[in-house]
């Protein structure tokens, strides 16, 4: 069993405002094309760790933070080159001294990566009570005039608490990587390889934009193609390595990449309607937060009950992809 809490910034960008800002005529077509009617937007000064911290605070009142011995934090926008953002979150959440901290910038496959680390840590005795936080603010790297990216992506924070004692079952994993995908999906500038400089600031920080954290660049068509190429095989391989068939799966949750990709994957992977769950219309693509937010919604909608086997499939920036089965 997981304890999951989510935090969605109260500020929303809905489709009417998106159309108005970009002066286009999409109207209802926007919702039809992207499947998203509203998505959260953080405050200008916030980073992913702020949203993750808020999600974590929801868990504090109900759970014992004093026994946490490992903190993992996943975000596309880590706060610092160094030290780790997790070391700073550890301080803010007043976690115990004897606690490990680790950042993973693993994007849309981040939740799967986090689960694999958690499984390893729990089964090998590295840790017993793990707090896994995710905080994503993709909106802060998207140019104001990019309708597609603004329509697709949403900001969010998630906190997951996993304790060994709770009889959690995380299955076997399959991972994949194709670094050639960087060309089609990456954040331009901001790391040590290609830092932001004066020319960049002049072009990208002005009255229209404030892209001082870098700029998200995405070739939607190639990302779509990547998903169709890799994900169906991934689904088969995850089932195989867990010695399961689709018949034995109770629910399938993909990374909530967006309407076009999800509709195509649902069809190509032949996911039975009663086993398929999606949740992105009111939150958008929240990167590493998207799978746990969907799990949280599925629980609230009573689509998940104790003992259910849930197939989780992540894929995205890297390109990277990965999946597993969890038993609730």
């Amino acid at each position: 069993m997981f304890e999951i809490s989510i935090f969605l910034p109260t500020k929303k960008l809905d489709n009417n405002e998106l159309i108005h800002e970009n002066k286009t005529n999409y109207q209802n077509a926007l919702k039809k094309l992207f499947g998203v009617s509203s998505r959260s937007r953080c405050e200008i000064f916030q980073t992913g760790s702020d949203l993750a911290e808020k999600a974590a605070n929801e868990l504090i009142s109900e759970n014992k933070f004093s026994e946490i011995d490992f903190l993992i934090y996943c975000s596309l926008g880590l706060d610092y080159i160094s030290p780790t953002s997790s070391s700073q979150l550890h301080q803010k959440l007043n976690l115990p001294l004897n606690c490990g901290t680790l950042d993973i910038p693993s994007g849309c496959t981040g939740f799967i990566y986090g689960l694999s680390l958690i499984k390893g840590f729990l089964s090998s005795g590295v840790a017993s009570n793990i707090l896994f936080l995710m905080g994503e603010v993709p909106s802060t790297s998207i140019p104001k005039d990019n309708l597609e990216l603004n329509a697709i992506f949403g900001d969010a924070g998630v906190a997951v608490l996993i304790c060994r004692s709770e009889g959690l079952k995380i299955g076997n994993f399959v991972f994949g990587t194709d670094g050639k995908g960087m060309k089609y999906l990456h954040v331009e500038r901001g790391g040590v390889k290609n830092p932001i400089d004066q020319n960049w600031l002049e072009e990208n920080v002005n009255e229209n934009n404030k892209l001082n954290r870098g700029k998200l660049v995405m070739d939607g068509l190639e990302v779509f193609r990547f998903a169709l190429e890799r994900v169906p095989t991934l689904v088969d391989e995850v089932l195989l390595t867990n010695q399961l068939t689709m018949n034995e799966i109770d629910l399938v949750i993909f990374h909530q990449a967006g309407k076009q990709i999800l509709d195509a994957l649902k069809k190509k992977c032949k996911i039975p309607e009663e086993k398929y769950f999606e949740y992105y219309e009111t939150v958008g693509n929240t990167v590493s937060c998207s799978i746990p937010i969907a799990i949280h919604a599925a629980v609230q909608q009573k689509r998940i009950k104790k003992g259910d086997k849930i197939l989780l499939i992540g894929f995205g920036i890297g390109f990277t992809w990965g999946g597993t089965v969890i038993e609730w």
Partner: protein
Amino acid sequence: MEIEEFIEAIENEFEEVQNGSLTPDFSIRDMEGWSSMHALLIIALVDNHFEILLNGEDLRSVQTIQELYDLIQTKLKVG
């Protein structure tokens, strides 16, 4: 699949397009309401019917439905 069947599949995929309105020399980008999302739907449709995944460069290299069909046939032969 013959080109007539392929055209019918495209017409069925795009609800704005009336059945019987497309011809082999029809320029794909002239389709009613064409947007980048339609490109995705074409890719999914081709993958679904021929198990071939086109990429952006493939789509940019063709203008008409006939050219798209011919490209698919070429890729099918290559295997």
